[in-house]
């Protein structure tokens, strides 16, 4: 009997394999009570090592997992995305340390799940097949369901987990349905085959299947990036989830979905551009509008950041319309910057919460400028960056993104987006205003502990990175441009 193993190339999936193994190692070691204190640092180390591996693989050109059925590919795009995820996860670990201790959720599973989530995201980014994409998505989602509900004694945490689980299951269902339709139309789940089907002659029936498939996929992915009208879960889940998890949720999982979207819309579905461009333009503007306008009236900080993250998703949808390399590069750049900014913002809340001070509403921030100058300064940098004021990275990202939109010929979309981003200033500045221009009404209860060192390290790093990229963006821009060069 002749047994031919399919020719597979494990080298192509090294980053993912490494991340999964890292998570498993953390999980096993976490079982030993005496190592508990060391788990976060072990996670950091393993994440860093996988990051170094990924950096080494950069620039080695696309290597497919298998020639006969590609499934996953190792290219600069996937690797850069993986690096962003890893960096995000490392910052998340840093801000988690004291928070998890304070809420006694500092168990090995917490960090293991975090790394599993990263491996899922990395799979999504590397996928060239709907199946592997779905696999990655589920690894990510299931880890997140557990992470969101990790604070078992908090009602909000449970509520958020349940909500995210129910809606996430629906979203997965939509994606599966869409995959089925696309398979029906093209006979394959491979991106390339679907793209070829789109490029060739196609009957009305096939066209309908393709459209339906794309539509359903967009619903599922729209849920992950909290695109209006699939955004309703966002504020509740962010509010309920442990703060570091909310930070991770708002950056990592959103970024992963965007990365998939770049691959899908950019290289698989350009053939249907006539159909999805108007749809996504309208949804993008709606997302920007709803996010920014509703954020105006929020007094709960996590809800405020949730709506702000909805608005940012809307901005990042805009460059898809022009469907150019510049557009994709600008999204990648924005994602990188956005990850640093949002982790910084949530990180400040996490560090404050870890100290035992309640930090839920704007009023809790009153007088922070004099109570905690460094923390307040970080928050101010992050807020100005989210608002897109120079010399912060947020400005550069916004500039690059909107230039791509204008270059694509969608000036009106750019103007609408920019005007709404003007609205956003109001709520970002309110945070700054409360910190620096309102005296604290009373000493916040229980705020006695010291600020966590690891958390502060993470926060200062992200604030410095935001300022550095705001002044010298060249390197990072080139990285983003290089990442999208490998896309077909």
């Amino acid at each position, binding site marked *: 009997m002749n047994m031919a193993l399919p020719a597979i190339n494990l080298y192509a999936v090294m980053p993912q394999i490494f991340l999964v193994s890292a998570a498993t190692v953390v999980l096993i070691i976490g079982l030993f009570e005496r190592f508990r204190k060391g788990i976060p640092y072990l996670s950091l180390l393993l994440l860093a090592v996988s990051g170094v591996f990924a950096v080494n693989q950069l620039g080695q050109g696309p290597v497919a997992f298998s020639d006969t059925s590609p499934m996953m590919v190792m290219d600069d795009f996937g690797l850069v995305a993986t690096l962003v995820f890893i960096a995000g996860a490392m910052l998340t670990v840093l801000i988690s340390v004291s928070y998890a201790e304070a809420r006694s959720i500092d168990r090995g599973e917490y960090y293991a799940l975090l790394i599993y989530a990263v491996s899922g995201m990395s799979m999504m980014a590397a996928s060239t097949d709907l199946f592997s994409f779905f696999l990655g998505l589920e690894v990510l989602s299931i880890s997140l369901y557990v992470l969101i509900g990790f604070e078992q004694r908090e009602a909000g945490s449970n509520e958020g987990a349940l909500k995210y689980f129910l809606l996430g299951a629906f979203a997965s269902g939509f994606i599966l349905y869409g995959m089925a339709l696309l398979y029906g139309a093209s006979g394959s789940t491979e991106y390339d085959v679907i793209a070829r089907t789109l490029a060739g002659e196609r009957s009305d029936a096939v066209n309908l299947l393709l459209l339906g498939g794309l539509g359903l996929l967009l619903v599922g992915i729209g849920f992950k990036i909290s695109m209006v009208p699939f955004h309703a879960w966002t504020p509740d889940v962010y509010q309920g989830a442990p703060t570091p998890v909310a930070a991770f949720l708002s950056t990592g999982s959103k970024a992963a979905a965007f990365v998939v979207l770049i691959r899908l819309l950019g290289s698989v579905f350009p053939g249907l551009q006539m159909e999805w461009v108007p749809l996504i333009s309208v949804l993008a503007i709606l997302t920007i509008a709803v996010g920014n306008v509703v954020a105006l009236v929020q007094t709960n900080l996590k809800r405020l950041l949730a709506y702000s993250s909805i608005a940012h998703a809307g901005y990042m949808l805009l460059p898809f319309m022009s469907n150019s390399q510049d557009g994709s590069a600008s999204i990648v750049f924005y994602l990188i910057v956005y990850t640093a900014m949002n982790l910084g913002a949530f990180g400040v809340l996490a560090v404050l919460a870890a100290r035992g001070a309640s930090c839920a509403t704007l009023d809790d921030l009153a007088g922070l400028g004099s109570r905690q100058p460094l923390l307040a300064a970080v928050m101010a940098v992050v807020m100005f960056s989210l608002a897109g*004021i120079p010399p912060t990275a947020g400005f550069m990202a916004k500039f690059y993104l909107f230039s791509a939109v204008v270059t694509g010929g969608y000036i009106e979309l750019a103007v609408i987006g*920019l005007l709404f981003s*003007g609205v956003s200033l109001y709520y970002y500045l309110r945070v700054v*205003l409360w910190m620096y221009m309102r005296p604290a009404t009373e000493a916040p209860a229980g705020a006695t502990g010291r600020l966590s060192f690891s958390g502060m390290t993470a926060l200062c790093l992200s604030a410095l990175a935001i300022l550095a990229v705001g002044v010298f963006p*060249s390197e990072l821009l080139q990285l983003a441009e290089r990442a999208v060069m490998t896309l077909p």
Partner: protein
Amino acid sequence: MTDLPLLSLIIWLPVLGAVLLLFVKGDAAARWVGFGVSALVLVLFAVCFSAFRAHVGDPQFVERMPWIESLGVSYHIGADGISILLAGITALMWPLALLGTWTIVSERVRAYQVFMLLMETTLMGVFFSLDLFLFFLFWEGMLIPMYFLIGIWGYENSARAALKFFLFAVFGSLLMLAAVITLAFLYHEAHGVLTFEMAALYQLAIPPEVQFWLALAFIAAFAVKVPMVPFHTWLPDAIVLAVVLVKMAAYGFIRLTLPLFPDALAELAPLMCAVAAAGIVYGALVALAQSDIRRLIAYSTISHAGFVVLGVFALNQHGIQGAVVHIVSLALSTGGLFLAAMMLAQRRDTWDMEAYGGLWHVIPVFSAFLLIFTLASVGLPGLSNFVGEFLVLVGVFQKNALIAVIAATGIILAAAYMLRMYRKVVFGPLSKEENRGIKDLSFRETAVLACMTFFIIWIGVYPNPLLRTLEASVQKLLVQTHRLAETAPAGMTQTSTESALLPAGLDAAREAAQDTR
């Protein structure tokens, strides 16, 4: 000496100072560092100015380095006559302002010095940028120090005012940002290169209807900050920085709106002139009704800013020169007025002019200085404001006599409200007991105000150095502005010949000044 990157030093030295301040302990030390750094900037500026060649219209001391290559952005700075004057008045005002507010700002002194220095950096950056992207960066970046300065060290309701100002300013700027991107895009379409070089963009031929919208976007950004009626409502709450903003916004008009959108100006310039004239009268009328000294100065600033805009959009040599000179003298006269008023308010803790009266007998030195600033604001010949206002009116008169007449009423009204204020504060019987104990100016305060007075009188009596510095640059600007407008209405082109007649025109202005005296 000339090998030093002087302009970069002037721009970035304050940032260094701000960083240094983070390591300084104690209020007194922080004050000295802030003052010392800004004084050093003034010295550097003096070196720079002494090497400046006035007859050259092109930017000088040019520095250029690649910066963000994939976006076609370079770090490109330089100074022409217009920018060097505006930068000069900034360099002069900063140490004076810090010295003047030495004891007035008593809370969070270190942060105040930090933000003031950062603000100086962004201002200098705006004036020296030759790259549109860089310009926008400084322009937007300025909002951060300004937000804190208004919000923390402003007066009652200042936090609200700061927010209001910020939102106004940002909406304008965002429109400008869209226009900036569009400009670069159009240039890319036409020439295949991505660049934000101002000089390159000036040469771009833009279809007139596109120009119109782009020009409107730029005007929106600048009009908010000038502040022009009807975008002025943030000002009375945030007067502290009004003088600074007038400078910047007017510079934006001159540097960008004029040379970039010559065709659109044919339509927009008369409109802008009309709005500016309306603003002059409006500001003056509202100022007439104020009893709060701070609000009075704020509205008088709105009125004066109208003159600046009017001069710019007269689109001729006299108008633009007048506008720049007026900006410089406004910084001195209104700045001086406001500083003096702050010193007074610090002593009595009220801004209500009814609370004073008869101060002449109590604090004669202060009263004398206040008199000079008041008279300068009124536009008394021989003091600085007169030169600017006169040149602007000459410029506008050539365009539209009616608007010139309307604007001139603003000067008359200015006399009414300023002298009314002075009479209530300084003259009259010393009826309030609390006023008897007011201390006169300290040596430090006297020195600050005397320094301003010196420049006010100098510009008023001998404005030639200023005008000569401006001449070549303004001519070059006008050539750029009219390059495409040759086919535009006849009225627009006359200025290119007019520049030859310039010296005569200026002499006439000076003679007129002497006659009136």
